[in-house]
């Protein structure tokens, strides 16, 4: 508010002038992030860094290539060491894995509680932490707005206020946030570990399950893989449904799969993959659509015609069919190995996703370019690139966000559909579509949960993103109607 002296000060200088609020906010934020320091590093390390490093090493001459891989491995070691730093929300603090000894109660669980409650406590803690961090990030924006922004008011303030009073949009935001937290904290929220459930269930070091054997009268150990064999959901004969324990005292909030694996863990990690595909494909498609919209609205004429043609040509090939074609063709190719094929899927969804988005934002960007301020900037002699970046793009991005949010659901559904057919993300990496396919024959039996729950999760996720898109639209442009057909077409799931 008192920032009238020099409007050209950078944000750093403005913070220096009045460091109090920023320091207070920063200290709390740093504390919150420090609690999860190890997990953040774990996230950074889980990106397949070896792919670009290896690629680089292959291209370069052997000697330099060796150095590159050497440096890469040093960084990997340091990163892995950081990733090992314990975090607040780790499962070891609130273990839900234990065994019940008659007469002595639960052994090995948090405070000797029943595993279900131990798991619930951990789940609640994760969401509380996420909510506090999200609130604090929002406080950061408010601090910036109150103390460091030189404008008292910007149009974005109105949009945010409109969004805050938009119930449907807030509902979408909460759903999306809940799933994002579930995906980000998948190792912490799931009742069992990734290695036991998916990657190496027969590992004798990390995948041992302790249980009390009644016949022998003592505590015994077995690998998770063999334990899974005895906890298969196979319809009416044997079923481990919602909120049940299996024979090894393992708790399954959503029951087990036909393979005996825990469905909740499968869905949490599967949600990770789905969200990765959705977000990456949206970023790619949105990037292409935005650059093309800026190009066509600025230059018009032939560029526009060429883009119309390209877009028509791409949309003449149904996305799902092209993806089936390309995923089959590239099955043996190394690109299908990155992130178990999720990368290839996300990439292809992005390449075949920009047409609808571009069509949806083409109209608005044409209108924005017609404004006087763009003509004025042209008169000033600004370069085309800086004109579109400064005077056109900020408005177009708003519209783009609406349709991105809606098309994201289409990518998630499409990826699930492909894995239902057995294409795309390969086992053992979880994909929701595969669970639906696996439980399909059991859906009329007691094991209905295998197919139904993943479907409900996809529906909720897509519903959340659609509601978020509606909210953003009403926030950005309250006059606009929701009946924009090209946008709706962009949002369609491609039939999956």
């Amino acid at each position: 508010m008192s920032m009238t002296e020099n409007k050209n000060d950078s944000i750093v200088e403005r913070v220096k002038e009045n460091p109090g609020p920023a320091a207070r906010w920063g200290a709390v934020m740093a504390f919150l992030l420090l609690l999860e320091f190890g997990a953040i590093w774990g996230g950074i390390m889980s990106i397949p860094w070896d792919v670009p490093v290896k690629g680089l090493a292959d291209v370069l001459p052997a000697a330099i290539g060796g150095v590159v891989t050497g440096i890469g491995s040093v960084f990997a070691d340091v990163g892995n060491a950081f990733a090992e730093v314990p975090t607040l929300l780790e499962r070891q603090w609130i273990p839900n894995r234990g065994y019940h000894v008659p007469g002595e109660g639960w052994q090995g669980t948090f405070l000797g509680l029943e595993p279900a409650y131990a798991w619930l406590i951990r789940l609640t803690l994760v969401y509380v932490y996420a909510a506090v961090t999200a609130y604090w990030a929002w406080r950061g924006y408010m601090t910036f707005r109150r103390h460091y922004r030189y404008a008292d008011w910007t149009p974005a303030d109105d949009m945010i206020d409109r969004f805050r009073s938009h119930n449907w949009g807030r509902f979408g935001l909460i759903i999306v946030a809940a799933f994002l937290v579930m995906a980000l904290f998948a190792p912490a929220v799931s009742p069992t570990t990734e290695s036991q459930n998916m990657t190496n269930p027969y590992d004798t070091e990390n995948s041992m399950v302790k249980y009390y054997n009644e016949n022998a009268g003592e505590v015994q150990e077995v690998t998770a893989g063999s334990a899974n064999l005895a906890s298969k959901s196979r319809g009416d004969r044997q079923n481990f449904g919602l909120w049940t324990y299996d024979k090894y005292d393992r708790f399954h909030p959503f029951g087990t799969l036909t393979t005996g694996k825990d469905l909740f863990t499968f869905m949490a990690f599967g949600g990770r993959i789905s969200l990765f595909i959705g977000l990456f494909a949206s970023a790619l498609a949105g990037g292409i659509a935005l650059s093309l919209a800026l190009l066509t609205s600025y230059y018009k004429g032939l560029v526009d015609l060429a883009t119309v043609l390209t877009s028509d040509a791409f949309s003449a090939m149904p996305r799902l069919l092209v993806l089936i074609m390309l995923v089959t063709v590239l099955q043996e190719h190394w690109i299908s190995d990155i992130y178990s094929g999720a990368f290839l899927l996300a990439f292809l969804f992005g390449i075949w996703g920009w047409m609808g988005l571009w069509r949806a934002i083409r109209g608005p960007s044409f209108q924005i370019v017609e404004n006087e301020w763009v003509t004025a900037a042209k008169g000033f002699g600004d370069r085309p690139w800086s004109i579109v970046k400064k005077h056109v793009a900020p408005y177009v991005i708003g519209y783009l966000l609406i349709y991105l949010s809606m098309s994201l659901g289409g990518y998630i559904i499409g990826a699930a559909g492909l894995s239902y057919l057995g294409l795309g993300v390969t086992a053992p990496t979880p994909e929701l579509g595969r669970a639906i396919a696996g439980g399909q024959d059991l859906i009329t039996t007691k094991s209905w949960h295998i197919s139904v729950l993943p479907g409900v999760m996809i529906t909720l996720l897509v519903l959340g993103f659609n509601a978020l898109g509606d909210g953003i639209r009403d926030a950005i442009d309250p006059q606009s109607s929701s009946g924009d057909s090209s946008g709706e077409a962009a949002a369609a799931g491609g039939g999956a």
Partner: protein
Amino acid sequence: MSRWTYFAKRLVLSIPVIIFGTSLTFFIIYAGPIDPVTSILGMGATSEQIQNLEQQLGLNQPLWEQYFQYMVDMFTFSLGESWVIRPDVAANEVILSYAPRTVLMGALAVILPLFVGIPLGFYAGLRPNTLGDYTASFTGIVWRAMPNFWLAVIMLMVLSSSEYWLFGFNWETWIVSTNVAGTPEMDNLLQPLNFIAAVKVVLPGALVLGSASMGNEMRIGRTAFLEAKNSNYVEMARAKGVPGRSIVWKHIFRNALIPLIPVITAEAGVLVGGSVLIESVFGINGIGWLFFNAMARGDLPLAVAMMYLIILLIVGLNILQDFLYTIVDPRVGFEGE
């Protein structure tokens, strides 16, 4: 630019679109890392066999020559022969034998939402912000968010134990006795009973396939109707004393149809793509099933031929859409530049 010049321009522009799509298909299939010869002969083929086959299929020629040959073949509709699914049968014959089931299902999937989605949307638009409007809108939104193939799985469950779920209503014996899933019998469709039986088998699939577009049509129909209702010309007509029925049908309905045209034609891509999944859930062996199997088993000419026909179909529908626009909306060609 007059309306018909606009239409002619769109017609000419569709040629490069077809060429681009067909070329892209060629490069994905034949220039990609897939090896057609091993997919025909299997892994244990001798090098002599491989050479013979390459000679026979023309795969030993340079890529550009193959490409040229391929484009000429496609545009003259000599679509080649199937390799694996039905060896040495012409591709178009194979496609024709699978097509009717998908065509029947697709036609139903287009027609059903038209008669459900649009009236519902218009109903909601006529009575905005009432309970009925909210119910219709909310159902449409949730319906749209459900994955089609999952919906199909659920539907399969409900119908196969329909007596339990639908209060004693038995789907399997309703009107004619059929299986819930499976391939419809497509012979003698002219006999009414056979036709009904075939329709009944593909009906669940068509309902699911059409569901996404039904939700879209409902939402767009609602807003279009609302927008037209609140427009100046409707107010004018009302001020003149035009009777309500005439306002609705003459002034609102026709204008509200315009934004619905692209939704209806855009369904084609959704139908073709979605039929792969729906057909595999319901066990109907139609076009989608054929495409998936042609790709999975390496029957490349068949897959390429299908892709080419689908591109033609979609481009044709786009032209139809422009044609409808030119007829329904007199403003076409005057907008923009």
